[in-house]
């Protein structure tokens, strides 16, 4: 058993990818909790898709791809905010427009530069954690440190703002700055996570561990800590599964964390589907309506 755990660690690439997976797991669970409580899960998806053109341009210009992705992510959130404040278009529609346009631009750019640069579109879409360098590890450590320190320092302000934005504004907190800061933290987190799971699956790391923890605890900081723990376990076990069964690593991590969510969904002491069977009747109104429609047809 012990041997089973140690064997992959003799490889340099496995050490690097485990470190990155654990860091990204913690980061995503903590920052993703804010997305979840603000009902902004879609924004996580929007930003992650929007970083594609930044990645492509950085590659073509041989600049740092983290910086390219971060800039593209921030520009997309600003555009989303501009569209929904300066027109009657609602925020979710604005997100849909911006992120699909950025994503399309990213795919176009990457396909164009693919021939000369030997980049693989699949690595952007699904991540390439086994290919992380020590430089990537350091970048991830720095980003994780910055984000976690900011969240610890601003915890009470961010909690007030995300719970009751109007109340926070009425108390004189700079809510627009807090909101923008939160967007930056989300963009940084997504950029750091791209190597692990890629653009498409980042959302899973952001919302699934936090949602799992939400079913088990009742306070925001508990949700972040438990979410981070679940996320770390998912990342590590996903990586081992991927090593021993030759599975793609990003999807393996995501599947394990979805498995944990399913367990919490079924067995959570307060909210579980099986521990609180009376709630499982939620489906019955639908059945009742179908039955009544059928009855109405039979007896005209």
């Amino acid at each position, binding site marked *: 058993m012990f041997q089973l755990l140690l064997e992959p660690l003799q490889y340099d690439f496995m050490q690097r990818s485990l470190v990155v997976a654990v860091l990204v797991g913690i980061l995503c669970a903590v920052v993703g909790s804010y997305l979840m*409580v603000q*009902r902004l899960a879609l924004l996580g998806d929007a930003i992650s898709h929007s970083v594609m053109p930044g990645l492509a341009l950085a590659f073509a210009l041989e600049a740092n791809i983290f910086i390219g992705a971060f800039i593209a992510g921030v520009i997309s959130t600003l555009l989303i905010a501009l569209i929904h404040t300066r027109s*009657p278009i609602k925020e979710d529609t604005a997100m849909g427009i911006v992120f699909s346009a950025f994503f399309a631009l990213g795919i176009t750019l990457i396909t164009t530069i693919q021939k000369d640069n030997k980049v693989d579109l699949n690595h952007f879409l699904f991540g390439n954690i086994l290919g992380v360098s020590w430089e990537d590890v350091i970048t991830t450590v720095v980003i994780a440190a910055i984000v976690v320190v900011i969240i610890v*320092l*601003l915890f*009470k*302000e961010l*909690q*007030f703002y*995300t*719970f*009751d934005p*109007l*109340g*926070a*504004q*009425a*108390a*004189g*907190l700079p809510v627009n700055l807090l909101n923008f800061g939160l967007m930056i933290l989300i963009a940084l987190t997504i950029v750091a996570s791209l190597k692990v799971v890629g653009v498409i699956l980042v959302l899973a790391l952001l919302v699934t561990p936090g949602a799992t923890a*939400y079913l088990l*605890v*009742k*306070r*925001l900081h*508990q*949700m972040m800590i438990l979410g981070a723990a679940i996320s770390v376990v998912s990342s590590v076990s996903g990586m081992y599964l991927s090593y021993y069964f030759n599975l793609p690593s990003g999807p393996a991590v995501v599947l394990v964390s979805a498995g944990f969510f399913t367990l919490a969904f079924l067995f959570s002491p307060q909210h579980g589907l099986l521990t609180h069977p009376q709630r499982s009747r939620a489906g019955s109104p639908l059945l009742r309506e179908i039955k009544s429609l059928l009855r109405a047809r039979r007896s005209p």
Partner: protein
Amino acid sequence: MTAMNPQLPYRSFGSMSQSESKSPAQVMADRRVVVEGLTVHYRTVRALQDVSLAIQPGRLTGIIGPNGAGKSTLLKAMLGLVPVIEGTITYDDRPLTEQLERVAYVPQRSQIDWTYPATVWDVVMMGRVRKSGWFRRFSTVSRKVAMAALDRVGMADYRDRPIGQLSGGQQQRVFLARALAEEADIFCLDEPLTGIDQKTETVIFDILRELANADKTVIVVNHDLGEAITHFDDLVLLNRELIAYGDRQSVLHPENMHKGYGGMVNFFSTMAA
């Protein structure tokens, strides 16, 4: 600044100008919340037009009017929570939005996501965020103030409960405790009486009366014209513009009510007046 008061186009009905001369301290700084020519638009819709009034400290002021009259909008505009097209709001001769640390605001219960992962204690402590300052943890003083506030609204036993498990009245009392914890001078409550039990209503008015007696400014948006209205000293009657402002009896004059509610109101004037 005090000299301009008589020229303002208040539609006042007596009482408001007398109490001013009571304390000499009030002559130096204007401790009324003075709203002048306030106009608010939501995109192309006119929400409030040219509202001017001066709300007194030491009295319970209710904002009443029909649905869509701009009651909540007036409260929000005073605190800078919605964009103001025209007009000023001053307190102590300075814009109110520059001294929001002196304001405690209780939003409508429907504006809050009650599934948020927070306990009663977490919410009350939010009232201490501003007082604590950036990058700092809550002090022992803050904890004591919050505990006292929670005790005052009769919710101390619930401090570790998730807010989603409370009744509507209990949620409202927790928000009132948060406002008390802010130790403010001006208390603004947006429809605190909607969907609550009798006990909560009694607790709320007891506390608001105490605050008024301590010379605080208390402004309450109130939706219905039931018995609760008798608790207020002054009323602001709105219908997109100021219909009437002054002490309760004068505002509840049938002529005003007809103007404000367009004759549709079924009102027990004897009870309230």
